[in-house]
């Protein structure tokens, strides 16, 4: 079943096309990585879905409904959103941060912070702490818990592991992949890290200069013959070979 259908998406910044007639269909339950060099339009594509960016042309349908027909707040409450800078509210406790979307939806009654903290493998006593007392990895785990609090089906993630150290990054990536399976989520993740995309995603979409250049499983991508795509994929492969040769 198609969870997200994008067709003819176009967005211009000044004279340059950030997105040029992009069409993409994502099935429910898929974990899609959106990769490409800086400025290729991947963040613009992601933000068009929850309408943080308004495209110049094209239609985006979420479970069959045009996102422009859904009231903005309702649309965003229903989509999990995780970003590189995390963006926890510094004046709220961890529990208040996690509970914010249910509260905005008027369902602030029950405190599910313990359950959600457990979901992201954080101890329950963290609930009363403020964000400044958390490490980077802990903070992003809270970021995930906050995004998941209203039980969204779709997760939009923009470089979610980008600000973390390599060990934390790997651990959190694996942990999220587990949540994706367990909760039956549909995930669209922007990353510039090809290795991360290859290791976590079911499907990789390569954007270059606002157009889709390649779209396939990690295995298909590894065998792709487009020279630009090949050059991108070769980086982690060569690094792996050099590491193996040490």
């Amino acid at each position, binding site marked *: 079943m198609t969870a997200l259908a994008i067709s003819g998406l176009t967005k211009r910044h000044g004279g340059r096309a950030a997105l040029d007639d992009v069409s993409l269909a994502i099935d429910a339950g898929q974990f899609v990585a959106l990769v490409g060099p800086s400025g290729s339009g991947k963040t613009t594509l992601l933000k068009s879905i929850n309408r*943080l960016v308004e495209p110049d042309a094209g239609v985006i349908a979420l479970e069959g409904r045009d996102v422009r027909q859904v009231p903005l707040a309702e649309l965003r409450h229903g989509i999990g*959103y995780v970003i590189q800078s995390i963006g926890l509210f510094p004046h709220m406790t961890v529990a208040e941060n996690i509970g914010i979307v249910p509260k905005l939806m008027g369902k602030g009654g029950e405190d599910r912070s313990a359950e959600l903290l457990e979901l992201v493998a954080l101890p329950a006593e963290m609930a009363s702490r403020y964000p400044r007392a958390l490490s980077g990895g802990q903070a992003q785990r809270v970021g995930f818990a906050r995004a998941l609090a209203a039980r969204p089906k779709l997760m939009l993630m923009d470089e979610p592991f980008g600000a973390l150290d390599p060990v934390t990054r790997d651990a959190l990536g694996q942990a999220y992949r587990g949540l994706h399976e367990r909760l039956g989520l549909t995930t669209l993740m922007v990353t510039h890290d090809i290795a991360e995309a290859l290791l976590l995603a079911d499907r990789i979409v390569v954007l270059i200069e606002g157009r889709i250049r390649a779209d396939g499983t990690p295995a298909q991508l590894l065998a792709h013959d487009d020279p630009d795509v090949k050059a991108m994929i070769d980086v982690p492969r060569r690094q792996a070979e050099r590491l193996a040769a040490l």
Partner: protein
Amino acid sequence: MSPALAEALAELPALIRAHLLLSGAAVAIGVAVGLPLAIVATRRRAVRTPLLAFAGLVQTIPALALLALFYPALLILGQATGLPIPALGFLPALIALSLYALLPILRNGIAALQGIDAGVIEAADGLGMTRRQRLTMVELPLGASVILAGIRTAAVWTIGAATLATTVGQLSLGDLIFSGLQTENWVRVLAGCGAAAALALVVDALLALVEAGLRRRSRWRVRLGLGALAAALVLAFLPLAGGGGAAPGNGRVVVIGAKNFSEQYILASVIERRLQAAGYRTERRDNLGSTVAYQALANGDIDVYVDYSGTLWGNILQRTDTPAPQAMLDTLTGELHRRDGVLLMGGLGFENAYALAMRRQRAEALGIRSLADLTRAAPQLQLGADLEFLTRPEWRSVQGRYGLAFAGQRSFSPTFMYRAIADGSADVITAFSSDGRIAALDLVTLADPRRALPSYDAVLLVTATRAGEPRFVEALRPLLGAIGVERMRQANLMVDRDTDKRTPAEAGRWLDAGQR
């Protein structure tokens, strides 16, 4: 305790109350207007730039000038709209101070909202907060301490600048400072400054407590700080709302005006005593500028004050001729009544003329007795004038008739003008003929054979609405022709001298006792 200190302390509670109300209201308006403007300006650059430029411009206008500008502005507005807009007192002071409070609130408000981490804003939007939710749940709480720092700055500035509200006839701690400066009563000046500074420090400390409370999320700090501020404002407001309670049925409180020198304070206190004896409740508006005082009377903002015929002749009627004293009084009586319905009751019995004066020794050494003699000596002499004289028609008239050209000329407030001639930094000053310091400093006034200076009989002026009130007019009538120049000089000297100083109220009692 010295009587001057006792008197200053007795006035203090009422002045602090008025001062607190005025600055509290001004800061409240500054916040109520500044904060929404800061929110709009943060979102729209097209609003932000001109707004900050405007607020910055207001800030460059000296507070004293800003206050003075609102008096004529409100007067014109009142005349144009026909609405009873009070141009004197609380309203002009409030508007000017609110404008003054605006800049720090606006600037910090914009800085606070713009300074919020972009990631936090993106998260707020991405999680589906509406603009209003983002503002109230994220931006304002996060910006609160910077916004509050702006309010603190505004509060301290406003409490300081509110002392200047005295010049537009609003009661404030400035009353002590201004009258103290004029009469060289440093106890009053210190009491006024000290009280204003203490008030500013206390308010700043309470706001700092609120700020710390917001930063540390400590409810008791926020509550204690806000509670104390609110309690102070309520206390300041209550006695006014409750009313004085004295002499009900006497109608509106009589407002007595005075300009900014000792003689005016003394005469105002004499008038006040007479009216109180007749059963009126009274209020004072001291330290009014020369033209402000008359306009205020014409507009009904004050009910009665003493002015001088030559001043009214030049400033109000814009005349430059110098008729004989009685002819001038008759014309003034008719003209002021015709123009503004003002009643000129008559002269008090003495003149307070501008008179050029020199130290006796110096005048005799140079052989100067009159302004005509001064013509040849002037190029070697320094003139010390009061703040108004050099811009008044009388100065043009003196220059025209005697061709006076001094080596240099400087303006002083009256107190310092007399100091200047005493210490020799001025050779000639524009003294006032009823001033006790003429005798005290052994000065001679120079004769005016060509009648360049008009006469300056002290006259009692009553506003139109009181002119038809017999009890009011009769209460003041005994003062007409009753105060000779010698007694006035003595009363002035009691207040102005350095030793055994008396307060204007004491001098007024002494002066009035001589009439009965």
